């Protein structure tokens, strides 16, 4: 994980998962990346811990003993606990995703998943609370994106982008400093929830990169190996 940027802000994460091995693996991995991770092995325990503890993100498996994942989320939301929830599920299909999100989940990750994907999504969820949604202008280094006028400036030069490229850059800049995976881009920028056979996202990114970074000494759009992409001002 040497490529990965360890954030100064530590997250408190609760993992509600009955598969002991899977849970241990996630807990260990989160702790290694500098976060606090707790584990609950069934729905009841998980619900109690989620109600008591002050967690930044909950990771909830759908199928749990005693109380299933969706019901745990429903109960939390009924009690006005708005902690972001990421649902893990072996049923990784669109209709299940819709069900999960409708039940109050904020994100949905089908098993099997890679830890880098999980980490990236959890970080995005944890930061959403203090998110940049209300900002109208995103700035990273000398790159500036105006969400109202749809204008993008790099330094003093205007960058002309296609509508989709604009949305891609907007998403990346909204999560500046965070790893954004290819699947997240596909879901949030294109609204597709399937795996394309070829990595089409990489080509879109390299196009975008040639528009915003080409000819500038300081590259802003970085590839995080084995994980995804990140837009970041190196100086920061």
């Amino acid at each position, binding site marked *: 994980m040497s490529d990965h940027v360890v954030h100064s802000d530590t997250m408190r994460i609760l993992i509600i998962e009955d598969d002991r091995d899977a849970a241990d693996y996630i807990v260990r991995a989160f702790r290694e990346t500098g976060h606090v991770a707790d584990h609950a092995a069934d729905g009841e325990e998980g619900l109690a811990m989620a109600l008591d503890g002050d967690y930044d993100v909950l990771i909830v498996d759908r199928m749990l003993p005693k109380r299933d994942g969706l019901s745990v989320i429903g109960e939390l939301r009924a009690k006005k606990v708005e902690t972001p929830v990421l649902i893990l599920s072996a049923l990784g299909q669109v209709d299940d995703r819709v069900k999960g999100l409708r039940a109050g989940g904020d994100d949905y990750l089908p098993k099997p998943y890679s830890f880098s994907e999980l980490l990236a999504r959890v970080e995005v969820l944890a930061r959403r609370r203090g998110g940049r949604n209300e900002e109208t202008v995103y700035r990273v280094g000398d790159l500036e994106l105006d969400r109202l006028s749809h204008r993008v400036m790099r330094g003093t030069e205007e960058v002309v982008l296609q509508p989709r490229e604009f949305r891609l850059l907007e998403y990346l800049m909204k999560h500046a400093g965070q790893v954004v995976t290819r699947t997240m881009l596909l879901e949030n920028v294109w609204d597709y929830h399937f*795996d394309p056979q*070829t990595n089409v996202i990489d080509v879109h990114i390299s196009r975008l990169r040639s528009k915003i970074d080409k000819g500038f000494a300081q590259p802003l759009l970085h590839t995080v190996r084995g994980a995804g992409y990140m837009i970041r001002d190196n100086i920061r």
Partner: protein
Amino acid sequence: MSALGKLFRTTAFKLTLAYLVVFALFAAFLLGYFALNTRRLFTEQATQAVDIEIAGLSDQFNSAGIRRLTQVVDARSRRPGSNLYLVTTPNGDGLAGNVGSLPTGVLEKPGLTETIYRRIEEGETAELHRALVRVAQLPSGFKLLVGRDLDERDRLYDVVLDAGKWSTAAVIVLGLIGGFFVARRVLRRVDAMTETTRTIMGGDLSGRIPVAGSGDELDRLAHNLNEMLDRIEALMRGLKEVSDNIAHDLKTPLTRLRNRAEEALRISGSEAEYRAALETTIEESDSLIKTFNALLMIARAESGHARGNMIDFDAAEAARDIGELYEPLADEQGLSLDVEAPAAVPLHGNRELISQALANLVDNAIKYAAPAAKANGEPSAVTVTAGTEGDNVLLSVADRGPGIPEADRARAVERFVRLEKSRSIPGSGLGLSLAAAVARLHGGELRLEDNAPGLRAVLVLPRLLPLPQPAISSAPAEPAEAAMPQSGTAPA
């Protein structure tokens, strides 16, 4: 005996028997009713005739006296086939008439009496006849008896009863024989079916039920069962092929994965080398997971699970979106990607799945057309179109690649089938079968056509999804249809 017992236990025989009982009872009742009514009618007529005669003769007596009466009775008695007459003195001595003998006491009984008698001209040994008689007491003690012979009535009654008995017996015998033959015929054919079923249960799926060719209900049943067997056989064959392919196509990358890990362990290298080996291992696992996801997706589409997410959307827009997603990739591969979707194409379906199917087709088109384009050094185009044709929505992806020979097209949509030429190109071999499964989920099909040169893959989707009909038996047939990749798409 057991064969006969089996015969008697057949539905056909039991039905025959039941109908026979009902029919015989009905016939017996009808004939009995007829016989009784005829008898009653006859008796009524006799009574009437006797009453009229008595009234007439009494009048004669009243107006002209006993002498006149005896004259008239004598005259009437002599007519052939006449009624019975007897006039007696108050002591019972016969004065006139044709009655020879009567049981004692008949003359004293008032009203109508059925009695036996002998005519005067018959000897003592002659047979007794039956008659209906009435005795009128005349003034001054004379008695007048008038009667009518009942032999005719009894004969008719006997005839009718006999006819009834014999015809009922004939009905029963013929019915039993008929039932026996019908049952035997049905039994023979059912036995043939049972025989076939046993062969099939024994593992030989090629057995088929004989069809007699008469077009009756048993033939229809046999025909349908045979069709079902064809279907099952094809499904089983498909299943076997698929599992063979899965075994082969998953074994290869798994072996590669294992070998690479082993190699990394064996050759002690630097940390960077270990890291690189691990990274490739992860990459290969990811591609395996992708393959499994695609398989699951196909299974989901084929089981009809995704039916729940059908919405109305513009297929032209979906095509443009996919075109936009793949345009940079095509460009990078030296191809141009054009989308021809001038007008909105409303469609009811699962947008995500249809987009995925289109993405797979475009992905394939780029994969296969790119080497050809590079070899020729000429610009080559992948064209995505969205349009309508009658009640169908057509979404097509055409390329200028090598295409698929007509003979291979049906096979190309099967799971894991990667035609020989394409072995060198990476991919799970599931793209076309996923597209085909999605098309079937929507009640349509995937057509592979010659783009001369190249391949034109067309998703033909009915604009209005044929509704699944839960109440009608065709509903279960739908997933069965979908579950059979090899039969769904005929060569174009």
